[in-house]
């Protein structure tokens, strides 16, 4: 019996190692496919229909002699869409193995219109890795059980360990704990639109502070303080209130009603070129695109690596009893790559402003002033680069003086 358990354990460990190695081998192979199909105006059809492996994909779609609305569905979920397009090139990540396809609807089409799609899969298959680790763990536990003399005690100990270690799992920011806080400031010319649509303009200084009071499951209660100071230093507006935030999906609830989705953090941290639902205030949904990774200097925290998310928005309100449009074109916000917390950027639409009755703040360039979230050490490469630049600058300034003094002293001695 013991030998059989041990043999089973060895077989499981072997299969786990085998799966791990084969997932590495498979990760190095790039799988490419081309599909081309003639299309008819107004008709919808599917391309690249099948079970997609959970890997990174490079998608190149060309609509020849026409325009189409293209949607990507992955594992039954809507993933991306491209409207009125005649082609695009995108890099995406498929997270789950499942039935996926491109749904194409022709808007404009010539007689000889065709849609062709080239897709390349590259990188590791995530599910294989997870399964390999799982099989390995089971194999190792079985092997330990077959080795230990007091098998029954060991089995009970393992079971107790698993029962105790099982916790409800939420995809929530790991750093969000009761007591966590962040303070942001902005000082610039702003147009502020209130919830009722009234717009005021001027030089303002804004303070936004949130502090996590309590966490229950994936729901966090935040205390929000929003203060607005005018150019003469007088506090115009200062409100403090509680909101609830669902840490799974960043939805914000105020006085029992959902008011939007916060942009104070992004979790999980988005990848480059990924499109994210950045923020939402009531029904106004803002999507952003992750453009690049920057290194930002944050006073007190040094040089931090950050992902830049660019977005556009337009809102209409009333200024001096006339319709007035506030818009942001290509504005960006930057998030820490370790924690996903907002570091700086133009935070114009944010549901936390609602506690103060503010809907939009155009030109609200915020900077992280203070936080107890560990956003990681300063980026050493950038630190060294700046130090080297400083030394070089000092050397360039001092060198002529030193050389001049040296020449003068030599002349005097002669």
């Amino acid at each position, binding site marked *: 019996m013991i030998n059989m358990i041990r043999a089973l354990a060895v*077989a499981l460990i*072997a299969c786990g190692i085998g799966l791990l*190695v084969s997932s590495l081998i498979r990760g190095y192979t790039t799988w490419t496919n081309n599909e081309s199909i003639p299309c008819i105006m107004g008709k919808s059809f599917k391309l690249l229909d099948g079970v997609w492996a959970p890997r990174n994909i490079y998608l190149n779609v060309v609509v020849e002699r026409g325009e189409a609305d293209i949607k990507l569905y992955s594992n039954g979920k809507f993933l991306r869409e491209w409207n009125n397009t005649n082609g695009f090139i995108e890099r995406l990540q498929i997270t789950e193995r499942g039935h996926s396809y491109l749904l194409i609807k022709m808007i404009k089409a010539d007689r000889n219109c065709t849609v062709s799609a080239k897709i390349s899969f590259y990188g590791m298959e995530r599910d294989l890795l997870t*399964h390999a680790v799982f099989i390995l763990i089971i194999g190792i536990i079985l092997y330990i059980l077959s080795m230990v003399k007091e098998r029954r005690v060991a089995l009970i100990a393992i079971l107790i360990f698993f029962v105790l270690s099982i916790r409800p799992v939420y995809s929530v920011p790991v750093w969000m704990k009761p007591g966590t806080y962040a303070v942001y400031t902005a000082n610039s010319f702003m147009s502020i639109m209130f919830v009722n649509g009234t717009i005021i303009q001027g030089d303002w200084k804004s303070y936004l502070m949130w502090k996590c009071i309590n966490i229950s499951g994936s729901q966090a209660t935040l205390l929000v303080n929003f203060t607005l100071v005018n150019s003469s230093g007088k506090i115009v507006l200062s409100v403090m209130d509680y909101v609830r935030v669902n840490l799974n999906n960043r939805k914000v609830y105020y006085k029992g009603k959902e008011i939007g989705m916060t942009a104070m953090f992004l979790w999980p941290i988005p990848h480059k070129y990924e499109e994210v639902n950045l923020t939402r205030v009531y029904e106004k949904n803002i999507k952003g695109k992750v453009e690049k990774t920057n290194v930002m200097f944050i006073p007190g925290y040094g040089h931090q690596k950050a992902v830049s998310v660019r977005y556009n928005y337009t809102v209409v309100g009333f200024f001096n009893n006339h319709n007035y449009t506030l818009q942001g074109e290509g504005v960006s916000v930057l998030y820490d790559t370790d924690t996903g917390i907002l570091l700086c950027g133009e935070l114009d639409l944010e549901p936390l402003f609602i506690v103060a009755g503010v809907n939009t703040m155009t030109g609200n360039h915020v900077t992280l002033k203070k936080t107890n979230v560990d956003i990681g050490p300063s980026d050493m490469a950038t630190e060294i680069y700046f130090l080297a630049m400083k030394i070089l600058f000092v050397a360039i300034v001092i060198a002529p003086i030193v050389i001049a003094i040296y020449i003068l002293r030599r002349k005097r001695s002669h």
Partner: protein
Amino acid sequence: MSKILDLLRLEYDLTWRYLTLGMVYALIFIAYTASLNVTTGILTLYGGSIVYLQDVASSYMYSFFLLIGLSSYIYSKSIASQISNGLIKTILCYPISRRRLLITKLVTNYLVFLPSGILPELYLQFLYGVDMKVFIALILVFAVKLLFSSTLAILFSVILREPLMSLIGSMLTLYTFEIAPGFLWSIHAEKIAKMLSLNYLIVVLYRALSSPNFLKTIMELDALATVLFSIVFPCIFFLSSLFLFEKMDLD
């Protein structure tokens, strides 16, 4: 019954070590899953089973090449090595007839080997959920291939009685059988190639399992000779081994 179980256990303890067992399972798992190209991208839904099957049939080669080497090693260790070092005489003192001993060796090693092919197949079935008939066809072909290589390896071990020689002999013969269909296709001897190709049997079995009349489909696909070849030849190999082993002078 307990005597048979004791013999099976003895054979397992003498031939298999945990490291050997782990190596065999891990290598076959790697060869099997790493070579399946179609599953690294898009597996089409319509006719996906056939696409998957064709991909498996073409990539099965790697697992079979490995299986040939591993089975040759195991049987040369189990039979030729025990004959050459005289251990088999001690086992025969149990007492047990020579015929029963050889059958026990075949059954034990076959049963330990078989899950090494079933496990990766079972995993891929869980992952892709392809047609169950694909799974059955693949398992049947793996079982037939394993039986073919096992009986041939036993025959070589009994004839040559020396572990290294029997390992080399059975490996070379099995590789010849494996590459022969490809060579025969290239010289347009398709009929003989089909008969010798056990990989072709994967598609044949799947089609036969999918159709209402199993035997009729096999006949229609000209695969009866392949099926007979895969059953008759292992029987011949094993009966010859039994005959030789019974007549053999172990001193």
